[in-house]
């Protein structure tokens, strides 16, 4: 009994100590966060002066310099043009870019990933080459951070290495896609080469990105993909043709309303609302009246877009009635 009592006392004391330690840690963390925010408020005018006119600040402490760098990094994510170039110049002149590039060679993956991430926010073109190297890092987090930063830097040199990482599944599709989107139309020629590659996942990803980055002139290779053997590719092709505003694809997309896949019919119906004409309305009304939920709803929206007269035909069913109501609200 005495042993049990002693155990209970030790356990209680240990619990109290843990609670105290947690409370103290919490208070210290809150105080540090409060100080950081106060420093940020104090340093913000200096950051705005640098962004506006290249006015270099003088720091009283290392903490100030760190908070300032963090603030500028956040601004860099939201800005472009001269403002972003001034932020990049600050990081280059302060020696920060060199230091962070050196950290890409650190033995700890977390440090390398953090460095790769920071370089994107610093915005210096000097970081492109080292980041391309980091795309071959053995750690996936480092590769992902490097991809994100190359996107932020808008580096067209990164397009082929990124697509290579996509094809070898060395990076998640979303990471590669996001980076390519940020790089912009420079990625289109490489993406168009992938539109009829062997791997359906790659085909679908490439078509989706062409749809987001391209214009109607990029549409012809995508029209053929409406006949692809893989339904996911056909869905992306139908959706991309709408985003591209590919009016020449109208007939091919109308044919896709008869696709065996519900998702393809839905994407085709949605796209016809953008690139279609009155010639498509009858086919869309048929889908809106009797197809499964997704294609019927998409077709109804497109009917209303193409032909406002259907606002007065209540007998066309639930989806059309909803689409009419929605159109009236927006």
């Amino acid at each position, binding site marked *: 009994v005495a042993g049990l009592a002693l155990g209970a006392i030790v356990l209680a004391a240990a619990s109290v100590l843990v609670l105290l330690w947690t409370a103290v840690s919490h208070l210290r963390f809150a105080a540090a966060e409060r100080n950081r925010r106060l420093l940020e408020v104090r340093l*913000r005018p200096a950051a*705005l002066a640098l*962004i*506006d006119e290249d006015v270099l600040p003088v720091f009283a402490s290392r903490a100030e310099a760190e908070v300032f760098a963090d603030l500028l990094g956040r601004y860099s994510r*939201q*800005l472009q*043009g001269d*403002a972003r170039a001034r932020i990049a110049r600050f990081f280059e002149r302060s020696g920060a870019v060199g230091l962070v590039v050196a950290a890409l060679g650190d033995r700890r993956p977390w440090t390398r990933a953090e460095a790769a991430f920071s370089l994107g926010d610093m915005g210096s073109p000097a970081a492109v080459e080292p980041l391309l190297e980091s795309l071959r890092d053995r750690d996936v987090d480092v590769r992902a951070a490097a991809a994100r930063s190359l996107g932020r830097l808008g580096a067209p040199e990164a397009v082929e290495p990124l697509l290579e990482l996509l094809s070898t599944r060395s990076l998640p599709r979303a990471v590669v896609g996001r980076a390519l989107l940020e790089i912009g139309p420079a990625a289109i020629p490489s993406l168009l080469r992938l539109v009829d590659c062997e791997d359906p996942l790659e085909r679908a990803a490439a078509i989706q990105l062409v749809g987001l980055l391209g214009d109607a002139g990029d549409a012809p290779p995508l029209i053929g993909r409406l006949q692809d053997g893989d339904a996911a590719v056909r869905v992306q092709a139908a959706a991309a043709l709408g985003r591209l505003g590919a009016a020449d694809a109208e007939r091919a997309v109308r044919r896709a309303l008869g696709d065996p896949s519900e998702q393809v019919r839905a994407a085709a119906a949605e796209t016809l609302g953008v690139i279609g004409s009155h010639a498509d309305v009858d086919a869309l009304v048929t889908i809106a009246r009797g197809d499964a939920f997704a294609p019927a709803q998409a077709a109804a929206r497109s009917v209303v877009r193409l032909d406002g007269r259907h606002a007065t035909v209540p007998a066309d069913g639930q989806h059309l009635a909803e689409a009419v109501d929605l159109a009236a609200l*927006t």
Partner: protein
Amino acid sequence: MAEMPLVVVAEDDEDIRALIVHRMGKEGYEVLEAGDGEEALRLALECHPALAILDVMMPKRDGLEVTRELRRSEVGSRTPVILLSARTLESDVALGFEAGADDYLRKPFSPVELGARVHALLGRR
């Protein structure tokens, strides 16, 4: 001295709001700040600004809702609105204009370009 035109700046990101307020101040505008859509709508309806710069994704009411509400009101129906957003797809931009915005600036953005667009909108009217 001529009265400075009043601009409402609504943006929930404190960093960006401070940057826009700073830029508008430099361009010679008086600025009222809002951190959410409801506050933005209230300021725009009560203070009759010359222009409103609205972030699209804001708490309480988004920039699209605020724009629609302004267009429905008698007071705000003619207030020029610039929407600022990280939503950059063509369809997002189209939604912005359908809501009644006069201009749509995609993030990341250039503060100089924003200033030029504000100036162009106000100069034209």
